[in-house]
């Protein structure tokens, strides 16, 4: 097996209906059997580049390409499908957009079936690729019954089974738990020893980038750095941190998070006990332990109490068992756990999107069971794991102010008050979306989508915000934005329940932990 060589000459790309090209003047030469990491901040054009490499752009996505892309001398936008599928297999960023068969094992079999592989070999490939992502025991499950991370694994398996000469993985680790990420690194290593070319794209100088032979750094659609990882780390650490690809030294982080406006009273009220929070296993001690001292006026009455909560999906397996947790006003709780451990399920139960058993969830001391979702929404803000699920409006601005009017047509709405205008402006600036107001939310890059889904919930003050993986796949600068936003909400007196696979990046701000 030999890899694919890639050549890009003066590559540029402009999306339909846009004025500014997203990719400009990229010149690359990637040798066969090389392992390359493309990194860049959110919106720098990584996904666009990946889609150009496999020909999806402009072939079926439209837009105008300039310059040349060649895979082993053939142009992926013009070559017959068969030769492209042999040359390159791509994992796209959004797993939902690429799962087309509905059943896990059928997803894995889809590629080989199209490539006329014999049934016996398909079976072997399906088994092997599902084993590689740890999904063998779920092979007969419908994809829509999987957790976010499990879907991403399915998508990875489907690409693996194709066995092309070149793999392109766009942010493959975004929703994976730590063990699966390590597993994925190992997998990349194996693929390379088999002689394949490998490209990974991500928003951080992460382990995949450190393990690569070559790191290409994108900024604003052009290559700004290119070289072996050790060398880049040695020479350009400062620049990488500036781009948000390396974490900033601790002192600077808070200032950066605030953007241009420094946040007044930046030290959160809990700073004294910041590091007091210890991971608490589900079902053991209530998560309120760290509040013993330092907690404010409301120490006595928790906002939300979860009490021996057990939940099973209809006709499915038990997703949660005997969960205890307490959240107090002003808390910042991190909810962690492996893929499929029930984090999203717990958050949906709290929000009322799934029916919780009576008496197991209490809001300000009262059983929440009979409370309609729209009533809960007056107290709790909720951000979905998949930002696309949220979007209800045609452009970014409308999306942001949707909760203010609840879908009333423009003509019948009241004017936004000055305070609302100000809040909207503030949030947009903190999220860095000020110049995107007229764009459709669906056309944003993945990180931008996430930020938008967060700030559109923050528009209205709520007692509790539940954020399901708001930082997944983001660069450090964007994570700082999220942290800054959260800190601001804490200052307003809200509590935050944040689900994350990056606890080490946020833990210094958290007041307590729940581990499922």
């Amino acid at each position, binding site marked *: 097996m030999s890899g694919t060589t890639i050549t890009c000459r003066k590559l540029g790309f402009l999306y339909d209906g846009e004025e500014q090209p997203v990719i400009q003047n990229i010149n690359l030469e990637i040798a066969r059997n090389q392992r390359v990491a493309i990194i860049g901040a959110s919106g720098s054009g990584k996904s666009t580049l990946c889609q150009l490499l*496999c*020909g*999806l752009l402009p*072939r*079926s*996505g439209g837009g105008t390409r300039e310059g040349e892309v060649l895979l082993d001398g053939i142009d992926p936008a013009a070559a*017959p*499908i*068969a030769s*492209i*599928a042999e040359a390159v*297999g*791509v994992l*796209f960023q*959004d797993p939902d*957009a*690429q799962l*087309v*068969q*509905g059943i896990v*094992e*059928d997803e894995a*079999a*889809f*590629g*080989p*079936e*199209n*490539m*006329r*592989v*014999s*049934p016996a070999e*398909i*079976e072997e490939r*399906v088994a092997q690729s599902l084993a590689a992502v740890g999904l063998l025991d779920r092979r007969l499950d*419908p994809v*829509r019954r999987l957790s976010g991370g499990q879907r991403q694994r399915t998508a990875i398996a*489907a*690409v693996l089974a*194709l066995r092309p000469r070149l793999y392109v993985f766009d942010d493959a680790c975004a929703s994976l738990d730590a063990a699966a990420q390590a597993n994925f690194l190992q997998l990349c290593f194996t693929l390379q020893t088999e002689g394949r070319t490998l490209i990974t794209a991500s928003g951080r100088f992460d382990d995949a980038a450190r393990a690569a032979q070559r790191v290409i750094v994108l900024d604003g659609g052009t290559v700004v750095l290119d070289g072996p990882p050790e060398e880049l780390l040695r020479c350009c650490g400062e620049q990488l941190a500036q781009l948000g690809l390396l974490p900033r030294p601790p002192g600077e982080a808070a200032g950066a998070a605030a953007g241009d406006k420094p946040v007044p009273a930046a030290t959160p009220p809990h700073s004294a006990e910041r590091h007091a929070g210890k991971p608490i296993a589900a079902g053991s001690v209530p998560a309120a332990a760290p509040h013993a001292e330092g907690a404010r006026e409301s120490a006595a009455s928790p906002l939300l109490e979860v009490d021996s909560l057990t939940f099973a999906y209809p006709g499915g397996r038990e997703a949660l068992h005997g969960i205890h947790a307490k959240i107090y006003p002003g808390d910042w709780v991190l909810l962690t756990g492996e893929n499929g451990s029930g984090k999203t399920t717990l958050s949906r139960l709290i*929000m*009322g*999107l799934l029916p919780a058993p009576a008496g197991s969830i209490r809001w300000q001391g009262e059983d929440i069971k009979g409370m*309609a*979702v*729209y009533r809960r*929404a*007056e107290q709790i803000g*909720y951000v*979905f794991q998949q930002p696309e*699920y*949220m*979007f*209800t409006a045609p452009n970014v601005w409308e999306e942001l102010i*949707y*909760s203010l009017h*609840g*879908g009333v047509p423009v003509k019948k709405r009241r004017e936004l008050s000055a305070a609302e205008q100000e809040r909207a402006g503030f949030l947009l600036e903190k999220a860095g979306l000020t110049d995107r107001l007229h764009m459709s939310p*669906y056309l944003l890059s993945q990180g931008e989508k996430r930020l938008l889904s967060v700030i559109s919930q923050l528009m209205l003050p709520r007692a509790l915000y539940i954020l399901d993986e708001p930082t997944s796949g983001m660069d450090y600068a964007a994570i700082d934005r999220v942290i800054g936003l959260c800190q601001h909400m804490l200052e307003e007196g809200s509590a935050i329940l944040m689900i994350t696979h990056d606890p080490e990046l946020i833990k210094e701000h958290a007041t307590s932990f729940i581990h499922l």
Partner: protein
Amino acid sequence: MLIQYEKGSSLLHRYDPLSKLVILFCTAVIAMLLDQAWQQAVFLLLCIGQARYAGHMSGRQLLGGIRLIAIVAVPYFILTSLTVQGETVWLQWGSVSVTIEALNAAGAMTLRMFTLFLTSMAYIITTDPRELVAELTRRLRVPYRFAFGISAALTFIPLLEEEGNHILDAQQVRGHRPPKGLGSRISYGLKFVSAVLLNALRRVQQTAGAMESKGFGAYPDRTYRTEVNIPSWAAVSAVIYVLATVWLWWIV
């Protein structure tokens, strides 16, 4: 109503999808040919027996099916028995009269609906749609890209329902109250339908792109992970059934 394939090993399950489809069509033709209510009744009983014993359908399933179709069939029965002209008056009630001929026509029509529906239900429950699609391409030589449209649509149905749920969830999370009153219910329903439709169309481009990147349409044919072996008795019995149908057509 969404009836779905259920895995099993009954005789009907072991038939290949196409032979079974031929038999189903012949059954429909026979049901059309019989125009006496009693003939339809006998035929319906035969079909029910087959679904019960050859298809292992439970009495509950069958009753459920009969209830479903009854809702549609009863109004047909009433309309027909009141409007068809006949000689022999069976019941006279003011100016409304019901004749034996009308009852016969109405009975035949409604029983025929029962037969068509229940046999179709047996077909759906015992036929794996993926196998049907594979057979279409293998034996009828339908190009697989088109046949795949059927599997794609089948995959989309639960997806669309799920997408609908997401839309409802998102709106509720943003504080939408459930609509009250007819007017707001209708406008809410229309908004909902258009949101589902727009999401569906948005998916088209993504899905097609993702499929092509996995080699969809690369070759005129493709392989299938699961192989179906077709029992020869299935095809033979289908042929016999066709001949019997033709013969019946000839004699009536």
